[in-house]
């Protein structure tokens, strides 16, 4: 092992040597520098591997031949090895990134770069307090020197502000250090820890000054304006240095010094960190400048990490894991994003749509944003998970809430940014010029992030290899992006087919609930993917996104532990977000979908934390929860209802589903919504509906379901946009499903399952059909369609069957659903809710009729005279589903009888008896097969009669008619389609008034206004910033003394 002293020797030696050769060619000088930094990286990495492999133990190097306190000692433990590795590897890649800039600035810049890096190494390694101070100053001087790589007036003035602030902070640090020496008689950190100087008042003050100086170096909110200005205006490579290198070293200093401070101060450190995490992220919401935004985010992340250090006593053996994974996530993501900022060169985040010209950059950006947010499969996901679990185990509910709020605020601006990148206007923006040396470093860091995620997951002892197989498959598909869409489509379908083959038979034997949902997810996925053969070209980004969603969906079915479930749940959310935002006008809808989904996911995470604290991490142990059961039940219900789009949490759905691509709408509507239902069922099955607390929540959920059904159906009736109509109809249908399950009786749940399967089938049929029609006629507006039955008879038949199944008219399965439903309502005694649901059912006829009448019936529009039948690639999955729904309607008992038996385990008093196809309850009986036969015979008879009548009819031309004394000349005047239910709208429209949307908009407005108000403390004046620092010290001083 090469000793850590050589890190310093190499850097200092090279720096001095280079100083002698003023005339040296910059290329050679820089090669020397890179070789030096490379050697420094090698030394720290070999120590890191030595520690990981258990080959070395914590090693202390003494300098000057004396033992401390008479000399300075350098300690190379596992943590030090890790942190110096991070710093030096960053230094190396950052050097590559800055290659051209450093060369341009010449030898002095090269020397300063190396010395700054060395300073950070010593800060980490040293065990001597004064040495720490000296090298902190060396690094600060170095960084401020490097800020001068850019010579704009804003950069220079921000550097001066930084110096002033840094000067004030280091003054306090110096006083603290010398006072500590006075009281402890030593500057050796280990001596100070054991000397208990906190016993005297003076010692306390000394420690306080040191601690507050270290905290201030971490840029706590609100005393951090000086740093934000530098982040904004410095060269992006230097901002990356500050955020990834400097902040990492300073955080380690806090970690290293913590044992010196009284244990009671930990709470203060945690609070300071928590306030920074929430405050910085709140103010980030209003920020439009990319580098300043990253500055806010950087301060926020350091706040979170400070809080983690302060909360270490609750985190026990997982403390280091949490600290390292979150720090690593911050380090990789922030360096990567700052580097990308240097490539994009656009200041405003809404100009970052530029990235789309280079797909690799979009992928890198995505990896970094998701890493920063702690999304799977990146390392900080596991860190945040463990953090919440441990806090829950310690009963720290407030802290969980604070961390989730901060994370959510962070997600708000990061996903807004992501939206701009994916969907923003990029016409008229300058051309991207990517220099090779600037792209290497981000690629390396993104790769490291993925690998570190896998490693972190395995450290948690999860058998997560199985969860990575689909991800590897997706990565492989991602590498094949250059292939045409139909090839990738075949691969995707083959992958899904393989998944179906390996999982479904096993699930059929073991778990009917999971079998049904897995069937919907995978088979539905294959059918909707089939429609994708319609698309020509490469369809960039579609297949990885769709497969991430399906991998997540399959994952939540297969998950055994809470962590696996949450991992898959987040994966599904990310994939579906990418899918939804692909639509032409989907930017805002994708954004609101993500915000609701994340808020829901955080509710689930909080609930899982409380579950884990009580009964461990198995999903099946949900039933063992004893304390806070009602709260957990409610949190889970709210979390899952963000996905089922229950009233109040539904405002994202209409836009997201309607604006999505034609084959994406059925994926997210027919399939994805069922994930929320599955989650609700897991909760209901797991936690039971019996306990008093739960049953009152279920009562509320029942009403919520009923009202959702009513409002959803009513709003659907008033839509002009065909896909919006179907989207609102989904809200209504999911309302029925929620109502059915909330009844918590066997009949209700049988009805619920029936509805789940039914809604999947008919909504897939309808969305595929209408989506294909939209592809043909190029409009969503129903009043611009009409008479399409003549051009698209097959589409009409499919839509008709879908509508029959939807509206619950015999003979199709919708009727069976209603039969069970009303049986259940009557037996449960929920008459009022039942009446609301019944009324909603009547209203469903309004929109069912509207979509058939205005799209397919009436007069054909002139511009559609030559429109073709919908594409075969859509017809095939549609008709497979039509046949499926026919069979399901005729032989409903094939599915429902096993479900009844399955449910008997939960509801032992068995009110349904099956006799072949006939189901009997205390209220009556129903036989699907016979209903089908009778209606079939009636249908054939009436159809024959009509055909016979039709043969005698006189054929007339389209406008050979007169009504109201007028002779119409255009198809529009004969076709009442626009504002079709004006009368109903006048009478009942108030129910659908967008009050809930207004409410959420007000919430958003309030938050952004608050952010806009608070951020005015950053006046831009360097003296104000220095004053903030002094005031911060004084306030905290009075708070703890």
């Amino acid at each position, binding site marked *: 092992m090469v000793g850590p002293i050589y890190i310093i020797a190499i850097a200092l030696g090279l720096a001095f040597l280079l100083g002698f050769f003023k005339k040296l060619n910059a290329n050679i000088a820089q090669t020397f520098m890179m070789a030096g930094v490379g050697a420094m990286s090698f030394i720290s990495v070999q120590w890191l591997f030595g520690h990981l492999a258990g080959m070395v133990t914590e090693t202390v190097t003494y300098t000057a031949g004396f033992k401390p306190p008479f000399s300075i000692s350098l300690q190379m433990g596992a943590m030090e090895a890790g942190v110096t590795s991070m710093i030096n590897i960053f230094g190396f890649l950052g050097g590559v990134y800055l290659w051209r800039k450093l060369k341009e600035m010449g030898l002095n810049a090269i020397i300063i770069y190396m010395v700054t890096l060395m300073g950070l190494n010593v800060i980490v390694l040293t065990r001597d307090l*004064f040495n720490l101070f*000296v090298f902190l*100053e*060396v690094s*600060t*001087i170095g960084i*401020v*020197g490097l800020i*001068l790589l850019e*010579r704009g*007036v*804003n950069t*220079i*003035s*921000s*550097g*001066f*502000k930084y*110096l*002033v602030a*840094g*000067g*004030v902070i*280091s*003054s306090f640090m*110096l*006083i603290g250090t*010398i*006072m500590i*020496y*006075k009281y402890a008689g030593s*500057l050796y950190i280990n001596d100070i820890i054991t000397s208990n100087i906190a016993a005297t008042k003076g010692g306390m003050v000394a420690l306080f000054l040191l601690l507050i100086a270290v905290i201030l170096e971490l840029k706590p909110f609100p005393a951090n*304006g000086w740093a*934000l*200005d530098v982040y*904004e*205006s410095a060269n992006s490579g230097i901002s990356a240095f500050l955020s990834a290198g400097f902040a990492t070293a300073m955080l380690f200093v806090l970690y290293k010094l913590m044992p010196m401070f009284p244990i009671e101060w930990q709470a203060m450190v945690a609070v300071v960190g928590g306030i920074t995490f929430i405050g910085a992220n709140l103010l980030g919401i*209003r*920020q439009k400048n990319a580098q*300043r935004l990253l500055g806010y985010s950087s301060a926020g992340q350091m706040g979170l990490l400070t809080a983690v250090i302060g909360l270490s006593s609750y985190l026990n053996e997982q403390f280091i894991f949490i600290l390292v994974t979150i720090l690593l996530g911050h380090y990789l993501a922030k360096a990567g994003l700052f580097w990308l900022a240097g490539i994009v060169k656009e200041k405003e985040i809404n100009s970052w749509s530029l990235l789309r010209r280079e797909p690799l950059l979009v992928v890198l950006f995505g990896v970094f944003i998701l890493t920063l947010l702690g999304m799977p499969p990146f390392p900080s996901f596991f860190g945040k998970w463990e953090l919440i679990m441990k806090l829950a185990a310690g009963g720290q509910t407030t802290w969980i809430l604070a961390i989730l709020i901060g994370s959510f605020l962070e997600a708000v601006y990061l996903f807004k940014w992501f939206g701009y990148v994916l969907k923003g206007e990029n016409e008229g923006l300058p051309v991207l010029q990517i220099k090779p040396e600037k792209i290497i470093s981000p690629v390396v860091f993104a790769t490291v992030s993925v690998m570190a995620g896998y490693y972190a997951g395995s450290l948690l002892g999860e058998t997560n290899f199985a969860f990575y197989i689909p991800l590897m498959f997706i990565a492989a598909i991602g590498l094949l992006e250059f292939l045409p869409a139909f090839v990738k489509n075949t691969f995707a379908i083959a992958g899904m087919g393989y998944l179906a083959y390996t999982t479904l038979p096993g699930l059929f034997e073991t778990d009917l609930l999971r079998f049904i949902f897995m069937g919907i997810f995978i088979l539905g996925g294959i059918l909707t993917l089939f429609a994708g053969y319609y698309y020509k070209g490469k369809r960039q980004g579609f297949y990885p996104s769709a497969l991430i969603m399906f991998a997540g969906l399959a994952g939540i079915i297969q998950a055994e532990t809470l962590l696996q479930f949450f991992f898959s749940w987040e994966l599904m959310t990310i994939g579906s977000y990418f899918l939804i935002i692909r639509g032409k006008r989907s930017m805002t809808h994708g954004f609101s979908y993500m915000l609701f989904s994340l808020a829901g996911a955080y509710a689930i995470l909080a609930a899982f934390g409380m579950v884990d604290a009580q009964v461990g991490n198995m999903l099946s142990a949900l039933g063992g929860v004893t304390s806070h059961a009602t709260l957990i039940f409610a949190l889970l219900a709210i979390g899952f209802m963000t996905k089922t789009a229950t009233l109040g949490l539904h405002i994202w759905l209409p836009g997201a589903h309607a604006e999505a691509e034609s084959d994406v709408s059925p994926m997210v509507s027919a399939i994805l919504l069922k994930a929320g239902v599955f989650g609700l069922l897991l909760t209901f099955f797991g936690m039971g509906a019996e306990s008093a607390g739960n049953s009152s929540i279920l009562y509320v959920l029942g009403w919520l379901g009923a009202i959702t059904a009513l409002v959803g159906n009513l709003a659907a009736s008033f839509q002009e946009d065909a896909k919006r109509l179907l989207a609102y109809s989904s809200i209504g249908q999911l309302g029925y499903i929620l109502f059915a399950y909330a009844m918590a009786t066997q009949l209700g749940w049988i009805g619920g399952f029936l509805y789940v399967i039914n809604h999947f089938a008919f909504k897939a049929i309808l969305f595929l059909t209408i989506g294909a029609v939209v592809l043909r006629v190029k409009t969503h507006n129903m009043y611009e369609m009409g008479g399409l039955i003549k051009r698209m008879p097959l589409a009409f038949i499919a839509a008709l069957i879908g509508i029959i199944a939807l509206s619950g008219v015999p003979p199709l399965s919708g009727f069976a659903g209603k039969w069970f439903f009303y049986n259940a309502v009557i037996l449960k005694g929920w008459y009022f809710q039942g009446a609301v649901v019944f009324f909603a059912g009547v209203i469903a006829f309004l929109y069912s009729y509207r979509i058939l009448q205005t799209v397919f019936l009436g007069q054909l529009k002139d511009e559609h005279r030559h429109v073709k039948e919908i594409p075969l690639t859509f017809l095939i999955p549609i008709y497979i589903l039509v046949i499926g729904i026919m069979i399901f309607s005729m032989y409903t008992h094939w599915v429902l009888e096993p479900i009844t038996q399955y449910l008997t385990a939960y509801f032992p008093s068995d009110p349904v008896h099956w006799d072949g196809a006939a189901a009997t309850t205390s209220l009556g009986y129903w036989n699907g097969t016979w209903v089908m036969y009778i209606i079939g015979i009636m249908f054939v008879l009436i159809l024959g009669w009509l055909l016979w009548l039709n043969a005698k009819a006189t054929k007339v031309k389209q406008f050979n008619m007169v009504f109201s004394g007028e002779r119409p000349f255009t198809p529009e005047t004969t076709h009442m389609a626009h504002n079709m239910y004006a009368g109903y709208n006048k009478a009942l429209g108030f129910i659908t008034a967008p009050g809930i949307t207004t409410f959420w908009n007000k919430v958003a407005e309030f938050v952004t206004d608050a952010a806009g108000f608070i*951020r*005015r403390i*950053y*006046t*831009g*004046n*360097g*003296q104000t910033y*220095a*004053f903030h620092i*002094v005031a911060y010290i004084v306030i905290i001083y009075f708070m703890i003394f």
Partner: protein
Amino acid sequence: MENIGLENIALFSGLILSLVGLWGLLTQKNIIKMIVGFALLDTGIHLIMIAVGYVKNSTAPIIGEGVTKANAADVIADPIPQALVLTAIVIGLGITALMLAYAVKMHQKKKSLDINHYKDLKW
């Protein structure tokens, strides 16, 4: 004078000096005056450091007249604060120099030394 003690004078004047310096740094609008304020703050802290290391009636920490290896620990003043002060002076010099360099650059850009004229970055 005798009973006040030299170290207390140093401590007290150091405190006054650093407070004056801090005051100057926070209130003077002229950048050069701010830097002077910082220099005063720094010097004040150096005085405080010296005061901390002072031991009454002891001699300089140099082996020689009356100071032998055997009795050194009893008769000399603590040498460490003095060593630290030397280092701190060097660092303070570095930072002051850098501040002045920045002041020159800022003046070149905007022909102004008023800190209020450099507020383009905010919020």
